[in-house]
């Protein structure tokens, strides 16, 4: 694609995203808000997958951010914005203390360690009185911006969009920096990366901690629209579902894959209009079918099959005569 077309597409996308909440009904806006949250979780998963570490502690750090915002706003009567930052920093510090053990031990230990961390942190939120017990914290006040309260569904949607765009931009610039290239090297081959002098443990650690920060931001955003933190919202199954988003969207597309996957897997069950109990089954069956038949995900399928097809269509006979597309 040439540059003007890309910029044009981007502009159209921005306009659609901005006017979207005014076109659809409030219920759909709510679903969009959920999608934004899950997209941020999926982005973090794809982010650490870049360095070959699948993480299942997503819900834990999401919860840490959520609880930090909820408790700081409730007990310390702080404004919403500093709590986002503080939550992120808490998630990074705690993450550092925990992952200093797991990251040097390789992928398998990291994976299982993450699951146990997710479980332990949820248990702490539920069992320690300070965090409000299993029923959750009390009602958190709504976030404000310059004495204007962010309350309506479209406003919350814009708030989420802001966080998502910041997240995407940071990840995008990291991927295209020297650090991102080192991460790519680690993701493709540990030994090769080590042989060219990349400190694998430190680079992996940096990746996981940056992921932690944005997971905590997603948690703060979750508090902004759900207005209460409960241990059950940050459950282990939330971490698991995140993995489905990225594989359905496209495992090689760390930025667009989770967005598309979260969109599809949130909206399909909503619009199939089936009973709530059958929803997970349908999601799971869709995931299994996609993995078996489109292992590269939907975006990967577009890259492999649809794009060459369009290219052939555009060039007419040239490619048919054997000129490589």
């Amino acid at each position, binding site marked *: 694609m040439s540059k003007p077309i890309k910029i044009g597409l981007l502009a159209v996308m921005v306009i659609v995203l901005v006017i979207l909440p005014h076109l659809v009904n409030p219920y759909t806006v709510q679903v969009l808000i959920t999608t934004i949250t899950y997209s941020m979780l999926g982005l973090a998963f794809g982010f650490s997958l870049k360095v070959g570490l699948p993480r299942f502690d997503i819900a834990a750090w999401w919860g840490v951010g959520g609880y930090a915002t909820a408790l700081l706003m409730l007990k310390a009567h702080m404004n919403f914005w500093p709590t986002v930052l503080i939550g992120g920093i808490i998630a990074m510090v705690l993450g550092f203390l925990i992952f200093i053990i797991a990251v040097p031990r390789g992928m398998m230990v990291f994976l299982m360690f993450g699951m146990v961390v997710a479980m332990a942190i949820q248990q702490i939120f539920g069992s320690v009185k300070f965090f409000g017990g299993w029923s959750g914290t009390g009602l958190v006040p709504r976030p404000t911006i310059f004495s204007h309260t962010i309350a309506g569904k479209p406003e919350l949607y814009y708030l989420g969009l802001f966080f998502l765009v910041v997240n995407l931009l940071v990840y995008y610039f990291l991927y295209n920096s020297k650090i991102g290239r080192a991460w790519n090297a680690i993701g493709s081959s540990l030994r090769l990366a080590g042989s060219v002098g990349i400190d694998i443990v430190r680079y992996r650690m940096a990746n996981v901690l940056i992921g932690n920060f944005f997971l905590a931001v997603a948690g703060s955003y979750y508090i902004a629209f759900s207005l209460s933190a409960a241990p059950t919202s940050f459950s282990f199954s939330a971490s698991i579902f995140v*993995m489905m988003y990225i594989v359905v969207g496209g*495992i090689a597309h760390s930025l667009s894959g989770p967005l598309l996957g979260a969109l599809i897997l949130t909206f399909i069950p909503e619009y199939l209009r089936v009973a709530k109990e059958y929803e997970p089954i349908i999601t799971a069956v869709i995931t299994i079918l996609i993995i078996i038949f489109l292992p590269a995900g939907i975006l990967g399928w577009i890259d492999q099959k649809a794009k060459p097809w369009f290219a052939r269509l555009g060039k007419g006979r040239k490619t048919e005569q054997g000129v490589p597309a």
Partner: protein
Amino acid sequence: MDLALFLQILVNGLMSGGMYCLVASGFTLILGVIQVFNMAQGHFYMLGAYLTFAVSVSMGLPYPVAILVALASMAILGVLFHWGVIQWTMPHGFFHMMLVTIAFGTIISQASLLSFGYNEQVVPAVIPRTLEFGEITLNPGKLLVIAGAIIVMVALYYFMKTKTGTAMKAAAENREVAGLQGINAKRIFWVTMAVGSGLCGIAGALIVPILSATTVMGSNIFIRAMLVVLVGGTGSMSGALLAAFLVGIMESFAFQYLGQLNILAIFVVVAILVFFRPGGLMGKPLPMPGQ
């Protein structure tokens, strides 16, 4: 602490240790041989418990029959799962296989929620009275569970000594070399899946008269199995055995003092163990995909 309380806690610990041992050794077997990170392992355990309830309470058949039904049907389900889903995702790699097990587990847990409901399903105790030695009272059902777990582990030990078991170990060590020796890897995968899932089925069937069947029991035991595999080392069966009883007893004693926060204490101990013995209790683990 008096002796009676100590013994009760110890029996509880041994009982949960036995369960963790069955589930974790099935998990580590599948991880070692097929290199599938089977997230549905806990769900097979849960389904085994529900099946035991269905057979022994709803259908009124004797409890030993229910155990056999749970064992056989979980083994068959494991083979079907491998035949229908896993083998088609094998060429796509580790994450894809892991994800289909997650999806399959979701289907199992949601389907059992739909058919059995949110309420816990109670199977009456096998021996409905308590053993008393002076001041010490023990639940004979719990001792039965421990005995059952030990019998299954011994059976598994001798199974691993047979030709099939040796072939499984060989396939875990190096799939290609095992193939060169004339080991049919496809058949080994099926056997592994059947054994791994059957272990979960029998664990669920054994525990259900003590803890009634609930929908959360699958994820609960799966986390414990993760702890066990972390402590015992990935792919190590003897490590899993030792670690399972260690985790079980530790959890039981920590529960006495910390209540629901016992997982935190275990987590700290596991973190220390992983820090000092990254290869697991029994030394060097098997090579795993994508270090």
